């Protein structure tokens, strides 16, 4: 019998790509999202909120083999309470319901930003490095908490497989994260006198990493990176944007004006200091390697959606 997988946050760009990829790989695919979705016909879409009772109902009926929990509130203009409710409490709820429904595999994509960008941290952080983002970037506390919760489940749920992925900056035409939005502005500021190393991963390669994580036997917390890092100015210039180095003191004034992106204060550190990861553990566990070249990944952010 073919395995069925439920993707939460399935209406987003990443959810749609993953749904198609899993269909191609022979899975039965269900998506859950509170928004309507434009999905392939073979996918069953359930329009419910993962935090509400309707979600319990979906899992009880579908009895999926695996759950990929993509649903996240990325907008930083949402209140921290709202973000906490979706990103942290939502995650806890998804795990609880999935465990109750006897799901065998839970994949939780976190992100590398939870490590924080600090001047006194080494390059190429391993999975053991404590997530220190909360020290200077309180807006991502919810994501740090969700990551730690999910990572702890790895040791509590010994009779099922839990995978926590911490991918580096995901770029692609269908991806709507803060970094992509920053790069898609007419003018992109960098902090004058700073040019940290950046690692990037194409959205299609990220989907490959998610699909690989569904393979039986894969469990653990893994950094996911594609290529060797490049300095931020290369990322900005390759994306096709006009790069404007601004002194740090002016970023608060110009952010959100004159075609520049608005970036929260804590996120400016990521434009000054490197937050790079060592992704060899995931490569060794799964054989994962990016299919899309570094150059193509860098230019993909400005391309039209598919």
């Amino acid at each position: 019998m073919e395995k069925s997988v439920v993707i939460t946050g399935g209406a987003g760009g990443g959810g749609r790509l993953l749904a198609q990829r899993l269909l191609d790989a022979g899975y039965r695919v269900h998506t859950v999202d509170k928004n309507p979705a434009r999905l392939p016909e073979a996918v069953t879409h359930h329009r419910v909120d993962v935090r509400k009772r309707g979600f319990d109902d979906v899992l009880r009926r579908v009895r999926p083999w695996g759950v990929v929990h993509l649903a996240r509130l990325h907008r930083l203009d949402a209140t921290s309470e709202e973000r906490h409710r979706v990103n942290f409490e939502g995650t806890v709820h998804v795990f609880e319901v999935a465990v109750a429904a006897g799901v065998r595999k839970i994949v939780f994509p976190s992100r590398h930003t939870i490590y924080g960008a600090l001047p006194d941290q080494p390059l190429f952080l391993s999975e053991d490095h404590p997530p220190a983002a909360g020290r200077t970037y309180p807006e991502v506390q919810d994501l740090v908490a969700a990551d730690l919760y999910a990572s702890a489940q790895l040791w509590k749920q010994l009779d099922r497989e839990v995978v926590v992925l911490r991918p580096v900056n995901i770029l692609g035409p269908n991806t709507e994260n803060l970094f992509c939005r920053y790069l898609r502005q007419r003018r992109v500021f960098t902090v004058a006198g700073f040019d940290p190393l950046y690692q990037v991963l194409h959205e299609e390669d990220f989907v490959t990493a998610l699909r690989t994580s569904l393979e039986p036997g894969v469990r653990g917390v893994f950094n996911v990176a594609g290529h060797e890092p490049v300095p931020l100015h290369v990322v900005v210039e390759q994306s096709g944007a006009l790069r404007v180095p601004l002194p740090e003191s002016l970023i608060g004034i110009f952010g959100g004006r004159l075609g520049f992106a608005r970036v929260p204060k804590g996120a400016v550190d990521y434009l000054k200091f490197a937050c790079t990861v060592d992704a060899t553990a995931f490569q060794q566990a799964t054989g994962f390697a990016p299919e899309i070249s570094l150059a193509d990944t860098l230019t993909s952010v400005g391309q039209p959606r598919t």
Partner: protein
Amino acid sequence: MSRPFRSWETALDQLVDDEIHDSVDRLDLKPNAFGYDRWGASPAAAKRVLVLVRWMYERYFRVECHGIERVPVGRVLLVSNHSAQLAYDGMLICAAMVLRAHPPRFVRAMIERFFARPAYVNVLMSRMGQLIGIPENCRRLLQEDQAAVLVFPEGERGGGKVFRDRYKIMGFGQGFMRLALQTKTPIVPVGFIGGEEMCPSFSRMTPLAKLMGLPYAPLTPTLLPLPLPAKVHIHFGEPMHFEGKGTEDDTVLSPMIEEVEGAVAELLAQGLKQRSGVFF
């Protein structure tokens, strides 16, 4: 870089001659398609900086290098005394390894954490392959086969030392020895002479330094960051091999560290005896 830097870069590129091209192209750097290696170093930027650094090396400090052929091929940890207030000693040792070693070696110095913060300085350091001195960085580097890493185990105690303490070793930390043992890396002691006279400091001015967020604020008659043209001698010692796991007690490690410290002190003592004058 933005436009004003571009024109600077082009101007400097024209000053890069065959010697520099040849030395840098033979370094064991693996730049990607955009010209940067995985640690952020850039051969093109290294060439531009070498134009200036070679002038300082040959004309300003008139560096004399002794025993550079003792540095073995393959992985190596260079351990030097520290002086000069700013990182001129690191710069000149790295330059010696590029300009005078056969084949040229790219040395990554483990620098003060402080250097990660100031604008532009941090980018320059990164492009030159210098990394802030955190054990994880050093360990990862020493896992590469051809790595040559330079450390100053005195840290800022040595860099910011005052003139009356010149050529006195201010006590080596332990980290370098643990890393050398863990990665089975031979140690080459280095004695750097001239650093104490190029920027003599009479006080660390600790309260002021604290106010400014610096490790020390040297009170010096020279106009910082400009050093006096003291003549520099760099002495490389015989490679030293130690056995161990790197997890030993301090009491086991101390004699090994003292041995390296003694080797550096010996190079300094001999070098000082041989030197004919501070500036000539």
